[in-house]
């Protein structure tokens, strides 16, 4: 394959790392000679400084500033460091990047993203529509106004999960608890806030790539073995469950999903049935596990974006573990200065 330049977002890494660095690691594993452009939002994003990760780093405007502003910044970056493929990895980026897709294509930047309709269909407040397509989902209520909270028990059984538009979820056992979480999530992520019936059972997470026609390019299912205090996976193991695989295939067919995603599925304790809890429209931070399982989904996404055929992957093997580690890296002040003042950091020559 000819050398290519791939831009990846999500270089952040606090106690809840972004998917950017693992996506980049997976791409480099398949193609060590590619050029990586890291797109970050903060001069202190650790992924910008990691050895062997990004050849060029550019700071971007926040997605909330709108597709036009993001597009202008990308055009300027592309003029200096031509990009062949762009992979967004943060939830809030998907809407503006989907809107920009034709513009990016015109510039020569390939993406592999869902349609705007697909993105809407998997939104937390629209998930219940999938039940009409045969995908089991918990009952949900969409909240745009705190005054509706008092009558909640007429519409949904407690306990419930109170979920932010993009991130975070809290369990609530009463309307009072719902109110507290609602205000916090509304302030942080905006509206709507979604309540979802709590399904007691075991959670499984699946990262997958859909082909946009209802088909599955590949998927890897994982059970969390270690959690952070925010419930994020800090260790996990791949599993192989035909029933779960069938549920994933059904969900992808119902969504006609194109591109990467993460499915959160709960297997109910009483019935053993699978429930779709959430769909994240991008790779998860644990996606490097797909490399360990022999199903490099980030690289498959690059290939698909470039119009190359990727044969559907066989089911991933069970028993591959990942354990996350946090390490301190010593960084040069000059690098921090470059990102802070100019918003760029280069480890390779640029076109200009």
């Amino acid at each position, binding site marked *: 394959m000819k050398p290519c330049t791939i831009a990846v977002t999500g270089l952040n890494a606090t106690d809840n790392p972004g998917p950017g660095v693992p996506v980049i690691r997976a791409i480099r594993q398949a193609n060590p000679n590619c050029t990586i452009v890291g797109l970050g939002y903060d001069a202190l994003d650790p992924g910008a400084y990691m050895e062997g990760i990004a050849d060029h780093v550019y700071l971007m405007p926040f997605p909330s500033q709108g597709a036009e502003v993001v597009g202008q910044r990308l055009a300027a970056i592309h003029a200096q460091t031509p990009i062949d493929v762009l992979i967004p990895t943060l939830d809030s980026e998907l809407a503006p990047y989907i809107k920009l897709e034709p513009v990016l294509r015109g510039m020569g930047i390939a993406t592999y993203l869902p349609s705007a309709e697909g993105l809407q269909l998997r939104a937390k407040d629209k998930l219940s529509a999938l039940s009409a397509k045969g995908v089991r989902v918990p009952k949900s209520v969409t909240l745009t106004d705190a005054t509706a909270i008092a009558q909640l028990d007429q519409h949904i059984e407690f306990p419930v999960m109170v979920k932010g538009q993009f991130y975070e979820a809290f369990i609530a056992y009463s309307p009072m608890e719902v109110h507290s979480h609602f205000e916090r999530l509304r302030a942080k992520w905006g509206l709507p806030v979604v309540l979802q019936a709590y399904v007691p059972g*075991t959670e*499984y997470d699946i990262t997958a790539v859909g082909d946009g026609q209802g088909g599955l390019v590949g998927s890897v299912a*994982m*059970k969390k*073995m270690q959690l952070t205090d925010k419930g994020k996976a800090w260790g*996990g*193991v*791949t*599993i*192989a*469950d035909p*029933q*779960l695989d069938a549920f994933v295939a059904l969900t992808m067919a119902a969504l006609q999903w194109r591109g990467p995603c993460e499915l959160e599925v709960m297997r109910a304790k009483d019935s053993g049935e699978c429930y779709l809890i959430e769909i994240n429209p991008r790779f998860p931070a644990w996606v490097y596990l797909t490399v360990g399982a022999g199903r490099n989904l980030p690289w498959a996404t690059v290939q698909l974006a470039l119009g190359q055929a990727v044969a559907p992957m066989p089911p991933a093997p*069970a*028993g591959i573990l990942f354990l996350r580690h946090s390490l301190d890296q010593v960084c040069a002040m000059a690098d921090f200065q470059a990102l802070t003042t100019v918003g760029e950091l280069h480890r390779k020559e640029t076109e200009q």
Partner: protein
Amino acid sequence: MYEHLALSDSGFLFDTRTGNTYTLSKTGTFLLRTLIAGGTWQELPTQLAATYEVDDETARRDVEQFSFRLKDLGLVAPEVGS
């Protein structure tokens, strides 16, 4: 019936469907290894008694308890071994 169970010689058991792991005793390892290799629940007490020098009744009770435990953990279906 047992394809989803990966059992090592040391007694480490991994359920490939759920991701759960367990550690079995020597006799537990012996019993499950026998089942995975094609043995039946009916012949387990005899094989246990012959291998571990226990009387038939103790072997029968141990196999029964083992059966309950596997079902309780969801490692085998409830009707298995009945």
